[in-house]
């Protein structure tokens, strides 16, 4: 579906569209970013303009740093060099550092060296362009070379030849975390903000009473679908990974974007959607992806990680762990500390 949503000046590519939430106490706007949609919700409503400007700066920078689809991105330049030692910008070094920490935390279930495998399956361009060029059958599956072969020392990255990084398991979370921080810096210490980046949500400042009302669903824009749930997020973050979206066909096979690093194939466990609450969105993002990849081991891994989680099986059955509320409108418990940011929390 293609819609013309605006006609305006040169800066309109980054234009925000107001979102009517039915709430006068908050203001919300949405725009396309990082191949998905970004939404900013603030209170008081007067903070929205400053919030959107701050979000533009953060999301634009992250796209220039970490996109593997933009030929002019810093990450693409690293890949073109074919391995070696690189001095990264602070932004990309931070994103790679989070990805490597997430891989360590998840025991390699969320591994950024899965880039080659994902490309081999055909996800080699911005997803919106995939449908236009279906291509031939996928290449032979290639297991990930292993995150432990990548070295990051401050801004210095040592990337062995042939390894391509895909920061997809953490990048949206990093983007949401950074945007919340930037919005709070821009709008001042009072008030609150919620940032959603492709359904991965982080909040900051003072939440509305009882927490931000957030719908948990499997697909975007289907908040009223059967099986969805309303929760309240007073702090931290919640993220969802699912194999129900970003699917494509290659050589008669249906594929999806969450790849098991151990096999180089799309994960085929019993869970189709996993939502996780954590202190930071990058933590929640990594844990949700790891749970999809972990398959039958997901419940054990999530329990050991101590994060609240909601898992939906291929049969539609819902399993809740770690204090995830069963009833609608209940607050999500969020654990302290971060596993993916240096120092526990940044």
């Amino acid at each position, binding site marked *: *579906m*293609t819609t*013309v949503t*605006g*006609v*305006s000046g040169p800066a*309109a*590519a980054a234009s925000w569209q107001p979102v009517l939430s039915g*709430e006068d*106490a908050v203001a919300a706007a949405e725009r396309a970013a990082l*191949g*998905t*949609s970004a939404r900013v*919700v603030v*209170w*008081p409503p*007067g*903070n929205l*303009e400053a919030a959107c400007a*701050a979000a533009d700066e*953060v999301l634009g920078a992250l796209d220039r740093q970490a996109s593997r689809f933009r030929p002019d991105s810093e990450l693409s330049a690293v890949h073109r060099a074919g391995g070696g030692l690189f001095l990264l910008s602070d*932004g990309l070094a931070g994103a790679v550092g989070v990805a490597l920490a997430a891989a360590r935390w998840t025991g390699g279930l969320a591994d950024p060296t899965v880039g080659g495998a994902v490309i081999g399956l055909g996800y080699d361009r*911005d*997803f919106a362009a*995939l*449908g236009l060029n279906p291509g031939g059958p996928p290449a032979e599956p290639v297991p990930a070379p292993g995150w432990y072969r990548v070295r990051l020392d401050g801004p210095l990255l040592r990337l062995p030849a042939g390894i391509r990084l895909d920061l997809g398991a953490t990048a*949206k979370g990093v983007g949401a975390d950074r945007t919340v*921080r*930037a919005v709070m810096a*821009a*709008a*001042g210490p*009072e*008030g609150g903000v919620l940032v959603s980046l492709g*359904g*991965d949500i982080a*909040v*900051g400042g*003072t939440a509305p*009473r009882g927490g931000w*009302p*957030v*719908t*948990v*669903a*499997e697909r*975007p824009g*289907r*908040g009223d679908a059967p099986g969805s749930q309303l929760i309240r997020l*007073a702090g*931290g973050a919640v993220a969802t990974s*699912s194999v129900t*979206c*970003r*699917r*494509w066909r290659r050589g008669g096979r249906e594929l999806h974007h969450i790849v098991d690093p151990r096999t180089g194939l799309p994960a085929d466990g019993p869970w189709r959607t996993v*939502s996780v609450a954590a202190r930071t*969105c*990058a933590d929640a993002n990594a844990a949700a992806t790891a749970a999809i990849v972990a398959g039958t081991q997901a419940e054990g891994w999530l329990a050991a990680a101590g994060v609240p989680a909601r898992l939906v099986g291929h049969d539609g059955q819902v399993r809740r762990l770690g204090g995830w509320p069963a009833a609608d409108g209940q607050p999500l418990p969020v654990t302290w500390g971060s596993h993916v940011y240096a120092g526990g*929390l940044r």
Partner: protein
Amino acid sequence: MSADRGDPGGRVPLAGVENSYSAERPVARRDGIRRARRMSNWSAAALIVGTGAAAVALAHQAVPATAPAAGPAVSGSQAAAPAAGAAAPGTPGPQVRHSVATTSASGVTTTTTRTVNGTTVVTRTAPARGDD
């Protein structure tokens, strides 16, 4: 050194001070040691209490009740003054009843920009194939 063990050792008493090295001196000395120990214990206790209080105060500063966002420091240009309509300090959050966002699989949205007759046309495409 023998002078430290009770022998005046040829020292001359100060005028008006009699028998400064009398038999009572060991008792006075023990009292002094006890007093010093008591002072030392109180000092140590005060130090422990002070360190604990400082640690608690720092912990509260480091982890505010509301969740700070993660990520690197923002640039100076982002650290702007509070926007117009900012809430007063200490204002509790508003009452919000309806859902304001959805956590779900990430939808696919792309924005392209082209110029038609000198006007910029922004086209938003969503969802893409396999994402509906």
